């Protein structure tokens, strides 16, 4: 069972729903250590994406879906998460360009490129208390699952679980990037909102797979 354009569209729709459901939680996390706009910004961005999904022409590939997501998020989000998530989807689109159905290895390519896009844009490393702390364990875990011969849904499950653990593990960290880095020790004890939204989005990918 491979995952195609229908899955990609369903993933994005589910991401939009999940972001809307967790809007207040993300706003609260961001208010504690940032500027409080993360939930609202992402919600607005994904709502704009959903409104555009119907304009995708017949025969679009997963890469076409991700490219649409990228350009829409970059244009509509307003905060740092616009360029960060936007670049993630843009690089993900590049990694799977031309492929109609994504197998386990393709999913690892997609996740790796997305993570590399976030690193390229934000220049954060693991342990900086950013969304990278969710993305990098997710990529590593997905790669191990794929190498172990697991199917697509299991690869996505491995990514989602690792992202959730990674997001939780940002709580004791001092931030070295982003608005929270101005707070020093005061950021300790709070979960990074970008890592949390990343884990929600990666969880959405599993929920709509097969």
């Amino acid at each position, binding site marked *: 069972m491979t995952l195609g354009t229908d899955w990609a569209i369903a993933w994005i729709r589910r991401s939009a729903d999940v972001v809307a459901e967790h809007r207040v939680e993300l706003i609260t996390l961001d208010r504690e250590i940032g500027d409080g706009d993360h939930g609202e910004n992402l919600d607005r961005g994904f709502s704009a994406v959903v409104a555009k999904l119907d304009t995708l022409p017949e025969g679009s590939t997963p890469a076409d879906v991700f490219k649409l997501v990228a350009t829409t998020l*970059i244009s509509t989000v*307003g905060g740092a998460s*616009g360029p960060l998530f936007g670049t993630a989807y843009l690089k993900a689109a590049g990694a799977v360009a031309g492929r109609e159905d994504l197998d386990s290895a393709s999913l690892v390519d997609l996740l790796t490129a997305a993570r590399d896009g976030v690193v390229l844009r934000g220049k954060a490393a693991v342990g900086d208390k950013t969304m990278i702390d969710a993305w990098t364990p997710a990529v590593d875990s997905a790669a191990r699952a794929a190498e172990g011969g697991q199917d697509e849904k299991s690869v996505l499950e491995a990514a989602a679980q690792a992202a959730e653990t990674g997001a939780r593990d940002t709580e004791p960290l001092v931030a070295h990037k982003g608005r929270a880095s101005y707070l020093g020790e005061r950021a300790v004890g709070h979960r990074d909102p970008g890592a949390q939204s990343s884990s929600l989005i990666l969880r959405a990918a599993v929920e709509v797979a097969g």
Partner: protein
Amino acid sequence: MTVGLLIVSHSGKIAEGLVELAAQMAEGVAIIAAGGTDDGRIGTSFDRVSAGLSAADSGDGVVVLCDLGSAVLTAETAIDFLDDGDRARVAIADAPLVEGAVAAAVAAATGSDLEAVAAAAATANSSTAGAGEGSGDAPVDLESKEGEAATTADGPYARSVTLVNRDGLHARPAAEFVKLASRFDATVTVNGKDAKSLLAIMGLGLTAGTTVDLVSSQPDGRQAVDALAELIESGFGES
């Protein structure tokens, strides 16, 4: 034309206010504001930044000045979306927004190229910007000078002049001073600071009645020192 400036801020008011401030010292430079989101909230807009990049570029390039974190991310993303040719003409200045923009605007007004305008912005990072560089080492071979010039046959050419205008070398006169200094190749120092560095000059805090020392060790520095001394003595058109 000149290098253009793009001011990227989370706040529309900051961007527009800074454009107003910088434009006062840099007539003829395209300085474009890209502040706030498309619907006027706090944030940065990819579309406004993209439109600003093209509006600020007259062919000589654009120096981008950004405030907090995501302004830089949005600017970098917008730059990534440019064609290769256009992208090569854009530089993001590593500088604090207000001081960097003012220094860059004055540098652009003097016709400096992209690299020099970005470097002028970056002088805002250091309080010792432009301190005395280039003075004292160049070989000199000056003839004896007439008049008030305190110089020797083989020493640097120097003049001491008193600031007569009411507000001293504050922003607008300082900008005028730097623009004049930039027309000469020679390096001139003002109380030891580079006469071409706006922020170094402003950092001296020279008020009315202060005597300043203009010095150049370079063979062609005399003309520059004289022109600058005359400008100071003229009072910059202020009373």
